[in-house]
């Protein structure tokens, strides 16, 4: 009896182990392929951003594969927009040999993934906004393309103060979490420097959807400018409600951190007209790489690249180029290839600062145009200004580990 049990146990386990690899996972890319993990919120509330970002990464891999004559593939990893699944799935991907990662739209997931990838000897390139990514929580394996809060305020608030010297009273609406506090602190510093009266601020929570109370407070404070410091659907909701309250006629409205084309399409030209937006990327930027990307997409897919698509395209391209140059995907060689790199990027010449792994690039001030002035369906805004403003790595709090 004992023998029979032992036999049954052994054979069952053996059969299960033989069948297992095929049971739960599909075959991964061939060993010879260069694999870039793309951890993005493919499901959940930010799935739309994830979809475009995955498309952008896939295009970069496709182009690189054709140019290099080798198989280059992206591996989409659904973070569900949450740090816990993001960390787990990145751990799994690293366990299966992936070392390069381009993604992480939300700050909370990007911070966690950056730590995990660095721990495992890989490289993680992100567009997430939290200052800590290249500030207090910077690490050797993490790189960030997007401009942090200091630069976003410097390139939106500062030029507008210069353009509108008569606008002396500013009111802010701020989400009460780390990102919002970063924008508000930077804005207050500029106000103080330029002698602007900060006539009030309304804090709101992470889950807020109704902004009419804050807008009423803003009206009561009689500001010349309303500076909106939240982002994504919250900034769209704030703007919609502000316009319906008639604020556009009473004051200048500025959204310091807009998502670009995705957001303008959702808002429509009537809401966007006359509003100022700060943005990381705009498809109308006059840069060779951007023009080539726009032309290709318009020809092949009848669309203009939005921020999610374009940023993910560039990050993936940078990782593939660096891996080709380094001849490996392992962390130390990749980091060496990326640190200090200057290249022709989507916003013109861009540089990866070695000390904190922050990409030094332009941030844009855009102004919504009238529907009648739009040259095509995507021509929502004019570029009013652009520039590069960054804290030093020391001032940002980066102690590279």
């Amino acid at each position: 009896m004992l023998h029979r049990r032992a036999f049954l146990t052994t054979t069952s386990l053996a059969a299960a182990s033989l069948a297992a690899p095929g049971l739960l996972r599909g075959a991964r890319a061939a060993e010879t392929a260069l694999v870039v993990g793309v951890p993005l919120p493919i499901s959940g509330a930010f799935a739309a951003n994830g979809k475009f970002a995955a498309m952008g990464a896939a295009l970069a891999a496709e182009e690189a594969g054709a140019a290099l004559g080798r198989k280059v593939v992206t591996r989409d990893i659904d973070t569900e927009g949450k740090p816990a699944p993001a960390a787990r799935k990145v751990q799994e991907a690293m366990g299966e040999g992936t070392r390069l990662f381009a993604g992480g739209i939300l700050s909370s997931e990007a911070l966690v993934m950056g730590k995990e990838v660095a721990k495992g000897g890989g490289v993680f390139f992100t567009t997430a906004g939290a200052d800590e990514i290249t500030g207090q929580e910077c690490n050797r394996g993490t790189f960030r393309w997007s401009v942090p809060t200091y630069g976003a305020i410097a390139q939106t608030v500062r030029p507008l103060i210069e353009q509108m010297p008569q606008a002396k009273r500013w009111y802010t609406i701020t989400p009460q979490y780390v990102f919002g506090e970063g924008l508000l602190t930077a804005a207050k510093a500029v106000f103080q420097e330029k002698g602007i009266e900060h006539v009030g601020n309304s804090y709101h929570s992470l889950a807020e959807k109704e902004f009419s109370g804050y807008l009423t407070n803003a009206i009561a404070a009689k500001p010349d400018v309303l500076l909106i410091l939240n982002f994504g659907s919250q900034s769209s909701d704030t703007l919609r409600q502000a316009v319906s309250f008639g604020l556009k006629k009473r004051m200048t409205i500025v959204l310091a951190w807009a998502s670009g084309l995705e957001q303008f399409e959702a808002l429509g030209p009537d809401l966007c007209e006359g509003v100022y937006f700060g943005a990381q990327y705009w498809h109308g930027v006059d840069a060779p790489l951007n023009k080539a990307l726009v032309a290709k997409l318009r020809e092949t897919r009848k669309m203009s690249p939005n921020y999610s698509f374009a940023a993910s395209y560039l990050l993936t391209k940078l990782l593939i180029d660096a891996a080709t140059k380094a001849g490996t995907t392992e962390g130390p060689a990749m980091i060496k290839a990326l640190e200090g790199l200057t290249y022709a990027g989507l916003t013109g010449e861009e540089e990866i600062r070695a000390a904190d792994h922050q990409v030094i690039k332009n941030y844009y001030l855009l102004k919504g145009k009238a529907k009648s002035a739009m040259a095509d369906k995507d021509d929502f805004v004019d570029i009013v200004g652009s520039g590069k403003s960054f804290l030093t790595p020391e001032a940002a709090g980066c102690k590279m580990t």
Partner: protein
Amino acid sequence: MIRILDRPLLHFGLAAATVLALPLLLRSGTLASEILIYALAVAACNLLLGYTGLLSFGQGIFFGLGSYVAGLLLLRTPLPVPAMLIVALLAGAATAAAVGWLSIRRQGVYFVMLTLAFSQMFYFLAYTFSGLTGGDNGLLDVPRPALAGVPLSDPWSYYAYVAVLFLGLFAALQRVALSTFGRTLLAIRDNEARARAIGFPVRAFKVAAFAISGAVTAVAGALHAMLIGVAPLSNIEYHTSETLLIMTIIGGSANLFASVLGAAAYLVAGDLLSAIWPRWLLLLGLILIVIALFLQRGLWGLIERATALVSRRPVSEDSAPDRPALPAEEPQP
């Protein structure tokens, strides 16, 4: 004579078999560990839902609390992992006792609303005290220290550690469910007024059930923070409570092993489907509708039906756990 599927020893055997099978079926040690961690939290949720009849939306509080305890103690003190887990267990028990003591003062929908309110309150506390919890970024860099010289950094070695704790706590929960205390919980669930009339201190029993459930859930939360290297804000939000309840319902609340089934099915399905279809949560909705309409004993009910088909025995339609058999009721060999 009790049915073979109702035997507690079988349930423990199945839990142990799951522990052995996961490394064979899954490539990812991280996913395997996550399944066991959630299985613990779901089993603790089942103690409230299935055994005591309390639909609590507060389980995320204890899960998140355990994560923060792990993060704070491992980052800021030299406390070893076992001691940290004991602190998490005690903190979970104390917090759950307090939440339970206040919530059970009302029944039905008001009880549910109270647990929801507590859930939101603890979430905003964690969000507000960002100096302690890391706020929306979470507590980063939670370490996974070696245990008696054995490193836990490798996913499978950590899995082994989680597996030992899982089996220990699963057995403990089973012991609770099979004890006089557990049988009294069933009596309270079935007829609270009668239990009170007999003389049982119903409130004290419910608070104790809350405390035990909170303690185990907090340990699960602590293990989760060590697994992913962060104590995220999302661990304490309402959504975590909801996820634990959904896993409990998918598995079925008939016994504690059903909770293991629920956790495994949810996590494996999510892992597979999310990469294929961005809207996989729609499928989850459909599955819940099917379970609510036709399969109220969850996946465990499916196993029961399959067994009944083979043995041609009727299946109970009651979604709650059967009264656990006492050892004395075991058939003699």
